[in-house]
């Protein structure tokens, strides 16, 4: 048997159910692995050794008491630090929340705990989830396990690195403009952004409320689907939560893994094929290979044009900063977090301004100011109002495209993982990472990223992701196609992570 940290989440749960391994052993193996390699990888901001061992012991006790265990009971998970966890430090990657211990659990934290999943700790991220490389964290730079000089994507880069680096079989991220899909793509794992409203946002520290959506990461499509099933469902505490229950994505994955996509119409989105440049040739080559694989599986390949996708970047970088400038107003130096300059003479307003100056990093300040500008009278109609109209046009493009095809596909990101520091000087050079992921964010539709090969164009062999987009509440289609693709890819090439260089003492 492979070492316990190399098992998939499904295999780990099975080993615990059959008594082949205890949840405590599994937790210890992962905590040891984190101890060995996280000094290099820097995926975690906080490791909860005691909490993880206690949660694992509870699963073991339930098993010995003869209780039936859920499909992921005892499986370790890494939680993005934007999700509040009672009693565990939660910073959202920002200095302004350094040392804050939330007094409650997010709904998804509660769901994870109820499923018997063992939370190992909190993962690093771009401050308030603003970024595509995790370099905007106020605390540390997370490394990509494929090449330690490169970024793990972002903003959920700690969560992607932890799973790709075998520190945890599962993790949770949040995706506002691509922050699950792009990190999954550049670390060679699977990541899914659910339909907006399918997973509760209660207890997520808000960045852009109309776009933020939490979702699962795994090394396999099945593991990702199993975690999705735990997270999804209506939550009365979130007024944007969809009341209807979503599709069975585990069943869709099992169905897809049989490898038959006949009758399925798959559309390539013309605007996301890099016709006007800006995409790496290695990424486009792997995308073309993926199209050929889907065709071999029986899918009919068509091409659709979504002309307004060309404006998704502009619309997103108006809407997200506008909402963030409003959401981040809650950091007022009164109720939680940092307070600077309170000398008994300064006014609240002065203390607030000094606190926010010291507590927020440069990208957060930039976005707050862009949002403040876009929402100010005189510019509102031309910027924010116009962006909201373009959002309607993008959703219309999706509707038309889904009239012609069951799913849409594209590369997940125009680039493979880039070097640390390569794109930090120019904000726009960072923003274009999200080119392919933004349309589904703006439309609120689900999309998955599944590994589709390696490109060595930028140096060492680095993973490329295939994005599969589906209509709202049809997340099952993403999983079905991703599972079929994964099965075919692995039958031909083996799992992509077998090429991961070894980290620390062992892989």
């Amino acid at each position, binding site marked *: 048997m492979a070492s316990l940290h190399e098992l998939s989440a499904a295999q780990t749960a099975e080993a615990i159910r059959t008594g082949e391994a205890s949840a405590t052993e599994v937790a210890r193996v992962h905590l040891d692995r984190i101890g060995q390699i996280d000094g290099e990888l820097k995926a975690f901001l906080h490791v909860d050794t005691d909490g993880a061992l206690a949660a694992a012991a509870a699963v073991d006790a339930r098993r010995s008491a003869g209780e039936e265990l859920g499909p992921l009971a005892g499986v370790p998970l890494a939680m993005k630090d934007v999700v509040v966890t009672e009693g565990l430090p939660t910073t959202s990657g920002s200095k302004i929340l350094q040392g804050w211990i*939330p007094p409650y659990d997010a709904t998804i934290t509660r769901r994870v705990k109820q499923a018997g999943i063992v939370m190992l700790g909190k993962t690093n991220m771009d401050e308030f989830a603003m970024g595509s490389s995790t370099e905007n964290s106020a605390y540390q730079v997370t490394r990509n396990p494929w090449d330690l000089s490169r970024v793990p994507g972002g903003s959920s880069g700690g969560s992607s690195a932890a799973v790709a680096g075998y520190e945890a079989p599962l993790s949770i991220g949040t995706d506002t403009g691509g922050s699950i899909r792009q990190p999954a793509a550049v670390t060679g794992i699977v990541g899914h952004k659910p339909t907006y*409203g399918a997973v509760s946002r209660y207890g997520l520290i808000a960045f852009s409320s109309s776009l933020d959506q939490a979702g699962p990461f795994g090394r396999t499509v099945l593991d990702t689907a199993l975690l999705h099933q735990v997270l999804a469902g209506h939550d009365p505490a979130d007024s944007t939560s969809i009341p209807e229950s979503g599709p069975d994505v585990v069943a869709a994955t099992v169905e897809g893994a049989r490898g038959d996509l006949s009758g399925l119409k798959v559309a390539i989105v013309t605007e996301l094929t890099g016709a006007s440049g800006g995409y790496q040739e290695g990424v486009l080559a792997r995308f073309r290979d993926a199209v050929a694989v889907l065709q071999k599986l029986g899918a009919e390949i068509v091409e659709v044009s979504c002309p307004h996708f060309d404006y998704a970047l502009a619309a997103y970088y108006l809407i997200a900063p506008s909402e963030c400038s409003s959401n981040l107003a809650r950091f007022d130096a*009164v*109720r939680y*977090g940092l307070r600077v300059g309170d000398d008994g003479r300064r006014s609240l307003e002065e203390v607030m301004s000094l606190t926010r100056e010291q507590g927020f990093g440069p990208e957060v300040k930039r976005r707050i100011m862009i949002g403040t*500008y876009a929402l100010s009278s005189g510019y509102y109609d031309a910027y924010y109002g116009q962006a909201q109209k373009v959002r*309607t*046009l993008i959703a219309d493009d999706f509707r038309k495209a889904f009239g012609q095809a069951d799913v849409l596909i594209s590369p997940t990101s125009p680039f493979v993982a880039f070097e640390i520091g390569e794109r930090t000087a120019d904000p726009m050079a960072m923003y274009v990472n999200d080119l392919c992921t933004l349309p589904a964010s703006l439309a609120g539709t689900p999309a998955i990223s599944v590994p589709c090969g390696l490109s060595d164009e930028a140096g060492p062999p680095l993973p490329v992701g295939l994005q599969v987009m589906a209509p709202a509440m049809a997340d099952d289609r993403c999983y079905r196609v991703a599972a079929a693709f994964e099965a075919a890819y692995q039958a031909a090439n083996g799992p992509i992570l077998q090429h991961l260089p070894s980290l620390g003492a062992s892989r």
Partner: protein
Amino acid sequence: MSEDAPTVTREEVAHLARLARLAVTDSDLDLFAGQLDVILRSIARISEVAAGDIEPTSHAVPLQNVLRPDQVAPCLPREAVLAGAPAVEDDRFRVPQILGEEE
């Protein structure tokens, strides 16, 4: 909309920072003025889209008037909430002076 690309001045950045309650340093003003200008020029192309009579979308899920049952439920314990506050006095959040009055 005019075709003029936005030009962000230092004064404008200072104004935005004041509105957003951000105490920006002098050297930051120059840095941000340049960067905000680049970002705003890039996103100004949003105005190319003819969207005159298009309905704006504020939200992907068209849910309205979402209410929960009117049931009494406990709120968070006071100590747990105040434990995270930067300053506390008499079981309340202590706030710096608001009205500019003497102590």
